[in-house]
């Protein structure tokens, strides 16, 4: 018989609630989809809107988004009672269920991301195919569908379609993550989850996490390569991070204050819980250290136009704190929501085990796995851009209407 993990509780909770159903991996899951949405948005700053400052991080963000995206099904499947039956949700889906629609959405969005990557790196793949031999050559040739056309017309074609795909990519990324928010907020059984604001908070904080993740990755990669990270890019990202972090803080605050103000049934219990077991996680980590502090750091980056080492240190710190904040927010929603009993008379005290599929090691492992995937993609593709002698910058081509002369 499987061990039954009983959680201790205060007050009264339904007997079946003493076994907490959704554990840390289900907190990692919206975290990952949020990173996908956020990283995708960063990538789109250049590929979609043509903001040249963000060119250095654009490809890194795109590959990171894909890395996070492919980890999502692994995280979800690990948590199921019967992962081998999960595909059945696509065979006979329940159209009313957010989970089943999520399956389709995730598949669709993975496909869109794949298309984006395919078009983005098509020229690179062709060049790689031309300059390698054996298995590697076969690999790249397969990726290019055995067509090594990189003429200006083909590149223009690519850019045109990239512009279109990018729109769907943004729709898809935020739709995906917003849908994850809907998975929680659509349940009327839990007061803590069933606010419509939950979806919006998920989306906005996703952008925060994506910006922070990409910034951090860019700093790490630059350090590793002993290059200087582009300061204009960093400062721009830091500014956006600040704006969205302020917006997130505002929304989370509004949601909490509304809950208290409305004072529906069980509010006494919720207050007791929030000021008791959840105090540190909620007020200190999620609001203070995770939101107010990074905002202040980023504000000083912006206000005092920090540069050099100060800039790198400030943005790195702010990114780490912001990432921690977003994870803590997901944890507080998923686990916190289950700790507040549906009886409204008690709460549970869930402790994350260390090992096992529900343990913190598994959760950290999932994050590390997504970073490893990103690393693999970075190795297979590249985060740099091709020399302009070979490939014309897409935006120069469009705005100037200059076809240029490029050796094919």
């Amino acid at each position, binding site marked *: 018989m499987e061990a039954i993990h009983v959680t201790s509780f205060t007050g*009264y909770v339904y007997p079946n609630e003493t076994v907490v159903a959704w554990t840390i991996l289900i907190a990692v899951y919206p975290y990952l989809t949020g990173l996908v949405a956020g990283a995708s948005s960063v990538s789109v700053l250049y590929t979609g809107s043509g*903001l040249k400052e963000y060119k250095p991080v654009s490809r890194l963000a795109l590959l990171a988004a894909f890395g996070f995206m492919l980890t999502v099904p692994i995280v979800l499947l690990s948590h199921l009672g019967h992962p081998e039956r999960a595909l059945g949700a696509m065979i006979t889906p329940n*159209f009313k269920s957010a989970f*089943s629609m999520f*399956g389709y959405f995730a598949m669709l969005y993975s496909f869109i991301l794949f298309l984006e990557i395919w078009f983005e790196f098509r020229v690179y793949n062709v060049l790689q195919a031309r300059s390698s031999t054996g298995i590697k050559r076969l690999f790249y040739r397969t990726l290019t569908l055995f067509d090594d056309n990189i003429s200006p017309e083909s590149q223009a074609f690519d850019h045109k379609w990239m512009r279109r795909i990018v729109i769907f990519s943004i729709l898809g990324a935020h739709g995906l993550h917003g849908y994850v928010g809907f998975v929680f907020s659509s349940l009327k059984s*839990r007061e803590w989850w069933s606010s419509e604001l939950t979806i919006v908070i998920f989306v906005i904080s996703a952008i925060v996490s994506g910006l922070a993740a990409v910034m951090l990755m860019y700093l790490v990669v630059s350090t590793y390569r002993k290059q200087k990270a582009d300061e204009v890019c960093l400062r721009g990202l830091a500014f956006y991070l600040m704006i969205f972090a302020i917006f997130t803080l505002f929304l989370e605050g509004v949601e909490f204050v509304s809950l208290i103000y409305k004072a529906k049934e069980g509010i006494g219990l919720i207050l007791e819980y929030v000021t008791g077991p959840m105090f540190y996680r909620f007020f200190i980590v999620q609001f203070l250290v995770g939101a107010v502090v990074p905002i202040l750091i980023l504000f000083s980056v912006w206000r005092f136009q920090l540069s050099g080492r100060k800039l790198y240190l400030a943005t790195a710190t702010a990114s780490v704190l912001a990432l921690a904040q977003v994870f803590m927010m997901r944890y507080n929603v998923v686990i916190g929501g289950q700790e507040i009993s549906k009886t409204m008379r008690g709460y549970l005290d869930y402790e994350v085990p260390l090992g096992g599929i529900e343990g913190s090691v598994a959760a950290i492992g999932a994050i590390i796995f997504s970073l490893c995937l990103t690393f693999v993609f970075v190795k297979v593709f590249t985060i740099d851009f091709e020399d302009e002698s070979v490939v014309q910058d897409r935006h120069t081509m469009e*705005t100037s209407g200059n076809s240029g002369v490029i050796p094919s």
Partner: protein
Amino acid sequence: MSKRTIPLSQTEQGRRRFIKQVLGSSLLLVTVPSLASRRGADTVLMEQHKQEFLEKYSPNGFDPFAHRWSYGIDAYKCIGCNQCMTACKLENGLPGHPSINNRWIERYTKLEGDSTVYVDAATDPANIAVSDPDNYIYRFDDRYENADVEYSFFVPKMCNHCNVPACTQVCPKSATFQTPDGAVLVDEDRCIGCLYCKQACPYGARYLRPIPARPDGVTRVAGKCTWCWHRLTQGLQPACVSVCPRNALIFGDLNDPNSDISLWIKQHGREILVLKAEMGTHPAVKYIGINEEVR
């Protein structure tokens, strides 16, 4: 083309585009609700294929379309002996562990001069200390015997087999569903154990099954009270109703005006309450003898 007299810089254009793209598209898309609300589609389709359904799938010639089950609980009579809980676990192959239940009993106690109502059930550590869960014996301790009790009563709880179930709405595969006769069941062979249904249920009626319910059963799937559907199809009553030594549990077919439940409902009429009516789930389990403290 832009209609402005002063053209925006490329950066500004890009920034505006970005903001529009991100915020606009995300807010638009996430407000699109789940596709095709197909409430009631299952039953409509089944009505059309009723004949075929009865030929192929009805067990022992049982016609689920002919019945509409309902359940009554008389909390005035319940003595909290937990015999129904024991019988349910033995009938349905559940472990004795007090955290895995199709049904359980709650004790509500209000003390003199104290505005809080205290609730405890089988998972309360003090109750576990006087029980023997491994042998399926569940008791309530005597903590209030020397206290000034204003009122105290027992409330049996179980799956309410709601007429508008929150759980079947969220199951990704329709592995949990409602039969034409009103019972909400779980298809053990389809369930993936995601427990979204457990989250959606406002009454805490579901759990993840740790041991198989029967020799050919499955573990790690969702479990819940089935109204002993395997007994209903043979004309018997659920195990809990069958053993209650105080006849505090009433079960029957609403389609039959002379069934136990129909007569009971007629008798008790406006006293009847359901749990968490504001959830809109329209439970099929009716209570008398509970007050607003019971959630």
